[in-house]
């Protein structure tokens, strides 16, 4: 039997710790932990080669999950799921090419956006909060990982995720998602997707460093006239306390299938419990009233 959940002991102030810029590994019970690690996916240099998808599948021994032709540009894996932990999105747009593309004359009326999506390893992870078994846990690197020997397939994490990342593997019954290659991190290796990325679109490293790098890259793109460029998941004060895996996008998040303003659902849980308590009291009151008013009715 595991000890009573650490989240109770280490989160005396539920309201405060479910929000804002906090250090997830410290909160998860690792006082002297290594720096928080993550991904910065710079989609402006993604060439849609899908090496990340392949490397992820190979390293993590993920089963095949459908060989279909979707007609969605070059995207046939469609989205993140139990057996797709990296997903490359392809978007064809009637918009001019960005000016920084070498050797291509700007002014055309077509551009192709590519972006490799992955689990965000949120600072405030809804999947982890709602997991009743403790199968989902916070690692010393600040990432979120499923323990497959514990997961009983209750499926609660799946609709809890505001990004649609984690899902159930039907033939197996359990929930699966990106581990940020916990096994590789533990021995000082970078995750398979970042290792295989030929353009450095996927950058792996300490989150502080990645945020600095992303800020510099964004400034560079804005200077070059790509004003649509924006960082997604970079802000530690957003609805999930910032993402451990964040992105540089060239259009609105929803264009890539990402929620424009995600919020960790447990932010509202203290209020939910209060409403539940009020409703329970109402039910008791209703029952008492029913016995008191019974004579009047009959």
């Amino acid at each position, binding site marked *: 039997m595991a000890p009573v959940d650490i*989240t109770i002991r280490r989160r005396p102030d539920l309201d405060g710790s479910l929000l804002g810029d906090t250090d997830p590994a410290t909160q998860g019970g690792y006082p002297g932990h290594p720096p928080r690690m993550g991904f910065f996916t710079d989609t402006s240099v993604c060439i849609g080669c899908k090496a990340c998808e392949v490397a992820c599948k190979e390293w993590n021994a993920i089963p095949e999950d459908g060989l279909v032709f979707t007609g969605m540009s070059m995207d046939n894996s469609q989205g993140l799921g139990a057996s797709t932990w990296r997903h490359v999105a392809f978007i064809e747009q009637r918009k001019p090419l960005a000016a920084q593309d070498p050797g291509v004359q700007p002014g055309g009326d077509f551009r192709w956006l590519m972006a490799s999506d992955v689990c965000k390893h949120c600072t405030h992870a809804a999947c982890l909060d709602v997991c009743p078994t403790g199968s989902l846990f916070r690692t010393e690197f600040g990432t979120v990982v499923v323990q497959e020997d514990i997961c009983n397939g209750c499926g609660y994490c799946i609709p809890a995720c505001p*990004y649609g990342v984690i899902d159930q593997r039907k033939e197996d019954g359990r929930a699966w998602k990106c581990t940020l290659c916990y096994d590789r991190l533990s021995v000082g290796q970078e995750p398979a997707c970042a290792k295989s990325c030929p353009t450095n679109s996927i950058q792996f490293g300490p989150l502080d460093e990645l945020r600095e790098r992303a800020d510099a890259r964004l400034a560079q793109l804005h200077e070059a006239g790509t004003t649509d460029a924006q960082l997604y998941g970079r802000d530690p004060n957003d609805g999930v306390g910032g993402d451990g895996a964040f992105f540089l996008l060239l259009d609105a998040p*929803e264009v890539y299938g990402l929620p424009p303003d995600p919020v960790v659902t447990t932010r509202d849980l203290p209020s939910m419990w209060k409403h539940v308590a009020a409703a329970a009291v109402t039910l008791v009151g209703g029952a008492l009233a029913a016995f008191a008013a019974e004579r009047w*009715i009959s």
Partner: protein
Amino acid sequence: MSEFQQLEHSSSDVTKDGLRGVRPDRDAPTGVATGRPGRLRTRQRDGAPTVPDAKFTSYYGMPVINSPVWSSPDIPGYLFLGGLAGAASLLGAGAQATGRPALERVSKGGAFGAGVLSLVGLVHDLGRPSRFLHMLRMFKITSPMSVGSWLLSGYLPATGIAAASSLTGRAPKIGTMATAASALLGPAVASYTAALISDTAVPAWHDGYPEMPFVFVGSAAAAASGLGLLAAPLVDSGPARAMAMFGVGTELVSFQLMERRIGITAEPYSRGRGGAYVRAGKILSLLGLAGALLGRRSRGGSALSGAALLASSAATRWGIFHAGKQSANDPKYTVIPQRERIESRR
């Protein structure tokens, strides 16, 4: 230049006018507004226009969040039976306190039966049912499912002892203590499931979290009163009739308040499969209530209205379940409210 002339000059598929034989409908750029006007422009049955056309962008119309993998009848059945059990425990305790043995037996037995069945549904829905006990590895206040698992592990034994004592007439003291415990935990069992579904990113469930517990306890009271009316004799069923009034009233009013407040994410509660169940639930609850009040001198009329109340509670739970799935599967319910939130911050 006609198709025939083109063929004469060249056998290539590449012509001055572009590729030959390319279907025009393949030309579907994304990254522009991809809202589906056909579905958005639907009108209410009274002809009044609903929400004006909302433009939003999505990735090939794909859902943003992953839809719950919870299945029917397990989970909506669990919501229904858990509610029925929790409220029936209160009715059973009240019946014992006021000396209505028939209503007491029906309510306590019903509460235990519904509770056990609901547990069967829960375990059956697990991806790994054999690992059910992993639910009790820890207690997590941040996980309503964990809270619920512990609640049920206290509630079910108490309810079982209360029912056994009431049905056999043995160990009345222990039975009374178990009845008290069951009545104490029952309201929590009936209401926590609202937090269970609201504590997700499913728009129709999450957005409705302030009213959802009241919808649930209302629906639970309606179901328990329905059981009392269906199975207890007329002489004992007075409190069930009064409880039906409370239940149906609470459920309908809070549902209405919820739908009005949450705006666009309330749409699934009146559309498609979810909408059909919700409508059936509302109609059945009003019919059941009318029957409960008007048919109080008729055993058959009371039983019929009790059945209608039970069915109404089930229909409401199935409706909420399916409406949630609908709201998860259409990106507009995720994207539009979040966009509006961003705009309102500017």
